[in-house]
């Protein structure tokens, strides 16, 4: 093991762009969506250029968000498979919550929570896309199929709420809780120690292979 290795590439530029396209569109969706969700939050729409503007861009941003999601799926499909190691890790999750990371079984590039977050966002995204289309063009749905519209409203908001829950945890963990995490999605790199601590199997795997430099 060479002491010269100070940084490990965790996210390629492509992955980082993807993440931030998804992230920023999601944030826009979140804010405008919340504005439409509750009168007490309608002021957000006003801040974002007014109700009609927010309503106009919301579905387009949603489309971009789901495009990014599917691209992510393409890129991370293998990384996001839930493995036996993940299941073992999941069992030990209380340790993780209590910051007793030394008591956790080793895991690969993403831990169970990250994978779960990905899949939740993907499915929520799909549901919001489909229901969103119905809400985008309600007049195209014939009157005798109006139940689809009623269902769409419920699905859209339910999926959004679930995604918001996941999103809160994601943001918290990526910024406040896991130090180094936020840097990694900005710059793409982590320290070997960080990698070793959080993703031992991944660390071992890539260190066994050709070490990466900046």
């Amino acid at each position, binding site marked *: 093991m060479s002491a010269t290795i100070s940084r490990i590439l965790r996210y390629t530029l492509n992955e980082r762009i993807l993440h931030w396209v998804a992230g920023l569109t999601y944030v826009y969706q979140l804010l405008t969506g919340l504005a439409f969700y509750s009168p007490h939050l309608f002021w957000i729409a006003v801040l974002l250029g007014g109700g009609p503007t927010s309503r106009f861009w919301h579905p387009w941003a949603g489309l971009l968000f789901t495009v990014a999601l599917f691209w992510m799926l393409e890129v991370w499909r293998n990384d996001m498979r839930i493995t036996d190691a993940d299941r073992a890790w999941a069992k030990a999750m209380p340790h993780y919550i209590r910051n007793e990371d030394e008591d956790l079984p080793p895991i690969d590039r993403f831990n169970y929570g990250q994978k779960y977050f990905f899949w939740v966002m993907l499915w929520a995204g799909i549901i919001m896309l489909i229901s969103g289309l119905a*809400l985008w063009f309600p007049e195209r749905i014939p009157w005798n199929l109006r139940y689809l519209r009623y269902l769409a409203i419920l699905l859209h*908001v339910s999926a959004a709420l679930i995604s918001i829950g996941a999103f809160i945890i994601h943001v918290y963990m990526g910024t406040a809780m896991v130090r180094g995490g936020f840097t990694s999605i900005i710059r793409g790199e982590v320290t070997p120690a960080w990698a070793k601590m959080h993703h031992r199997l991944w660390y071992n795997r890539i260190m066994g292979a050709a070490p990466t430099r900046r």
Partner: protein
Amino acid sequence: MSNGPLEIKAISGHAGPVPGRDTSRDYDVCKLVDVTTCIGCKACEVACLEWNGYPFRETVFDNTYQTMPDLAWNYYNLIRFNEHTASDGTFSWLMRKDQCMHCADPGCLRACPADGAIVQYANGIVDFQQENCIGCQYCVTGCPFNIPKFNPETKKVHKCTLCSDRVGVGLEPACIKACPTGCLHFGSKDDMKDLAGRRAQQLREHTAHTNAGVYDPPGVGGTHVIYVLHDISNPEAYGGLPANPRVPWTVKLWKGPLKWLGNLAMFGGLLGVTLHYLRFGPKQVKEDHAEGKS
């Protein structure tokens, strides 16, 4: 369309109390459509178009006397023509003036997220304020009568205003003024209910329409447009008038329990992560290289 003298009862997407609520003793207004005396002359359609200043538009022949298949954003009032054979073989040609029903519990207003885009006046008129409309069309989904229509160019939704601009200055709606047979009446809800009830009773007692009745559906809290129908048991025959209209339960769920549940969950989530941080703090990586950053 907005107007001065009307007192506002409820408005859509609005946080806090409704300004000026319960300060007036205006009575409820109501339009009575006595379908049994409608001759489908379309004077109401033309009056509506002319009063609202919309241009005449191209239509196509569609094997019916009905002007167009459905209401449009600039066509608030449409007589629906239906040839109907009752179970006893009696043939009838039903003509029903279709327009916004001005529900006491308006699904459109419930569903609308835009502050002040839909206004319910104390007199019962439910009115769209296009300057506040964001074009989301949730009202379209919220309406059990298939009334609001979207203008894709301006991205605003429109529907019958019950001529709030006329009613506000003491005039009857334009359609009422134009109706030649007296099939349309306008007055207080109580008076119209009384008139409708007596007409329905007359039909039951003196004509073959022994099942005549008044359509004032309780599922939406009653409406400010009510019908006298020859056969109250079959409103669907009158061009799809719903037998038991309700604000869709998903809209109610969404705007009711789900909203509070969601708010609670979001607040709980934020609280949870904050507490977590306070209790456990961040995960620190113990660096085993001198040059590593903490």
